[in-house]
């Protein structure tokens, strides 16, 4: 085939009990994301542009766990990770633990194209974002009520588990 594209917006236990309107909204947003990539590739654009722009759309969409709509850390913050890689050259770029970058995939692409390194973490990634002048946001930008409630439930569950066993997170390995 001349071109092809595949996207995902996360996997796991996805309840079938969600309202039809919510299912439809997810389908429409996935369809929109796919259309962005399709248009680029159909017009002869590059796969790296297609990948970046599709992911930018998904990062800016609060339904998905990336960019706006990212989950909460234990401390109530948001820390984002992203990576991009090109097959034939094996060029790659990645960032981890960024806190103020609106679109981490775009920063990962800048790491790939402008740095001799591959992965920047935390404060170093933020410093690189300063140098590259990418769009920045404060932590409030990433907030969504749904993720906030999920975080509070997780805190409650981990507290209960901790007091029952005496061990913190003895079921879940957090790396």
């Amino acid at each position: 085939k001349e071109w092809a594209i595949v996207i995902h917006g996360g996997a796991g236990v996805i309840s079938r009990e969600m309202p039809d309107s919510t299912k439809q909204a997810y389908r429409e947003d996935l369809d929109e994301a796919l259309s962005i990539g399709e248009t680029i590739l159909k017009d002869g654009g590059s796969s790296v542009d297609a990948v970046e722009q599709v992911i930018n759309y998904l990062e800016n969409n609060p339904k998905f766990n990336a960019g706006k709509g990212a989950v909460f850390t234990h401390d109530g913050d948001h820390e984002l990770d992203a990576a991009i890689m090109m097959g034939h050259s094996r060029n790659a770029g990645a960032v981890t633990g960024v806190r103020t970058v609106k679109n981490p995939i775009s920063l990962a692409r800048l790491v790939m194209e402008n740095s001799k390194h591959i992965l920047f973490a935390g404060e170093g990634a933020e410093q690189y974002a300063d140098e590259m002048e990418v769009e920045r946001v404060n932590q409030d930008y990433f907030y969504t009520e749904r993720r906030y409630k999920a975080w509070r439930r997780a805190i409650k569950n981990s507290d209960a588990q901790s007091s029952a066993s005496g061990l913190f997170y003895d079921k879940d390995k957090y790396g």
Partner: protein
Amino acid sequence: TVGCVALDKDGQLVAGTSTGGMTNKRYGRVGDVPIIGSGTYASEVVAVSMTGWGERIMEAVSGHTVSEYMKHKPATLREAGSYLLREVLNPGDAGMIAVDKNGNTLMDMNTQGMFRGKADADGNREVAIWE
């Protein structure tokens, strides 16, 4: 987590993934997404983006495993994806999307669902959530 893999008219394969990580993560936890070869990987034969339980995906060096299985078995993309999801990883661990150098696509998972979609130059197009 969100991801995208693509093959363009010049034959360039690219994989990208972006995530907020896992709810309630701590201690500077890093998952599979920014680990080249695990959650995100592209070679001259395939581009892969993973989603799911990051620790399991890293232990399997998932993206690289799919690529090397295709190269050295040799195997099709479907066979390589099935090997990773059904023989290496456990049920409930992960979903993956991939496109190979011939434009064959795969969106497969051993989880209950995955938000996903694919399209190609032959007019194939699909958006799905569950099986």
